């Protein structure tokens, strides 16, 4: 009995010290994110799951998988086909096209700064509660990659290069959906954009033009644009609140959005606020890509709002169509929004297809 008690205590001690990735006794090379100084100052530390720590090998594997069409049933469509680096990891098409030539119903979301999303909701409707979970669905979605995970894993495992890379990243060449999505999530967490003109302005390394400054004031002024309540301010360099709103696009809700996930009628027609970073590269706009230009987006909030049951209470002057910006304020607001774009992000060699 005494020995059993000792064993129990020793077991408790050991279990509290053991890390999750020690399951097979293998540890890859730990990696850290390159966090911009502004982010380190203003944002909580990134949200890295304990069971998927960042490693050099995991990130490299995730990058290779992200750009490889091997995950799709006919080996023609990679993640990067709909999340293109030059489009801020979004898609310039209104709807992406799956392997069977079928178009989706929502615009591809940009992938940036997702390591800092502490809301644990991903996708326009928040259907995934982690980046690892987010990676599961597109592979099997019949209008996207239209594959099975068993088939995808089997094809990857048949490749000697991948067996080696999985061995290096996770200490096993037995490949499944869990490890594939873990690797891709690691890569996606490295996609950090924090070097826009406005970031540099905040660090006194750049100056804004008078028009850009006025546009910033329109953005922050509750009596004019009042954009900041949903899309943030200089103290939130993510430029999103990561929650869900009905922003007055349609009088009749045809896409339930967040309501598809929660089943709550109060959530019908709600979609996640997208980040305003990299708008220069991520057209078209809105969850369904209905607006081709930023001018159309600004016109929507200025004169185009329509009422529906679940419209967000932050939407103002709906009967008049919106906040009624002057032509000059509209132009300046666009100029400011473009200062949030970061060419170094889309041209970062670490985020491009591997050799």
């Amino acid at each position: 009995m005494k020995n059993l008690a000792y064993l129990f205590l020793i077991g408790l001690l050991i279990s509290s010290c053991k890390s999750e990735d020690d399951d097979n006794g293998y540890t890859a090379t730990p990696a850290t994110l390159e966090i911009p100084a502004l982010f380190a100052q203003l944002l909580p530390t990134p949200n890295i799951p304990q069971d998927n720590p960042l490693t050099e090998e995991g990130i490299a594997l995730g990058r290779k998988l992200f750009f490889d069409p091997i995950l799709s049933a006919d080996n023609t469509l990679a993640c990067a086909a709909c999340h293109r680096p030059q489009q801020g990891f979004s898609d310039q098409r209104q709807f992406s096209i799956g392997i069977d030539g079928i178009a989706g119903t929502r615009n591809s979301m940009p992938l940036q700064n997702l390591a800092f999303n502490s809301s644990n909701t991903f996708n326009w409707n928040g259907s995934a509660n982690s980046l690892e979970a987010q990676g599961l669905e597109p592979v099997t979605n019949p209008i996207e990659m239209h594959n099975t995970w068993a088939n995808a894993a089997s094809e990857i495992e048949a490749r000697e290069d991948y067996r080696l890379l999985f061995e290096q990243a996770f200490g096993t060449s037995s490949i499944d959906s869990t490890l594939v999505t873990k690797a891709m999530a690691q890569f996606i967490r490295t996609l950090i954009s924090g070097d826009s003109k406005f970031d540099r302005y905040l660090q006194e390394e750049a100056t804004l033009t008078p028009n850009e400054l006025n546009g910033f004031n329109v953005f922050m002024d509750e009596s004019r644009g009042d954009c900041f309540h949903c899309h943030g301010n200089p103290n939130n360099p993510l430029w999103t609140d990561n929650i869900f709103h009905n922003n007055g696009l349609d009088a009749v809700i045809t896409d339930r959005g967040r309501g598809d996930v929660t089943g709550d009628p109060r959530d019908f027609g709600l979609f996640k606020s997208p980040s305003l970073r990299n708008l220069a590269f991520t057209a078209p706009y809105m969850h369904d890509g209905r607006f081709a230009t930023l001018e159309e987006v600004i016109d929507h909030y200025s004169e185009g709002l329509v009422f529906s049951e679940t419209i967000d209470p932050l939407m103002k002057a709906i009967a008049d169509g919106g906040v009624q910006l002057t032509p000059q304020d509209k132009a300046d607001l666009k100029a400011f929004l473009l200062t949030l774009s970061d060419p170094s992000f889309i041209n970062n060699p670490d985020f491009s297809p591997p050799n």
Partner: protein
Amino acid sequence: MKNALLILVLAIGFSSCSKDNDDNDIAQLVTAQLSFNHQWDGEDIDIFNSSAIQYTNANGEMVSIERLRYLISELSFEQTDGTIIDIEGYHLVDIDIQGALTFNTGIEIPAEQYTNVSFRFGFSDTANIDGAYTDLNVVNWGVPMMLGGGYHYMQMEGSFINDLNEELNYQFHTIRAAENPGENVQNTDTSFTVNLGPLNATSSGAVVVNVDLAEWYKNPNVWNLNELYTMLMPNYDAQILMSQNGPSVFTRGVELNP
């Protein structure tokens, strides 16, 4: 040896709920915790189902509550000898986040009688430092610099029916009042302290706070939503009026399991 093990295990078990006094007596501890119970005109409401237009304010306007977030800071417990136990930190109550209606401080205080429990609605000026709190930055709780920066105290939003029988959105946002918005803005601290009165915390440090939302619209200033429903942040006079109406919103509730 068996006894030694037993003592070790017992010691581990008790370490989380007691502390040594100077005379080595074991003092019982309880966790300081505030729970917020929402009401309308003194009646409990289901704040998770408050988004329909169903409440009538003192001015006769029907309103809904679709979004409600407010910040609590400076929680403190006054002991019978006058010593104040200050609880560090703050809490953002948010009806859209599971569990956020409770401010579980994780701080243990002596299980005893207290002459007063108090907290501050919002931040004091000294704590209201622009950009200082990363968890508040990331949920867009900040206030524009043209209004003095810092953080909101409250965001209460929904719809109401105006005198023309139109449904309009309102944004009842409280911040420190800002005079002359812009580069020469001057702020007035409109946060306030709420005194909840004595607490018998001999078995629990949990305190229930009743939050009567109707009070924002009536005491002492009857609020006319037809006139004051939007763009209230840059409205200095509106912020002063809201601050005057705030203290009666918060009262001591009844702890079910003291």
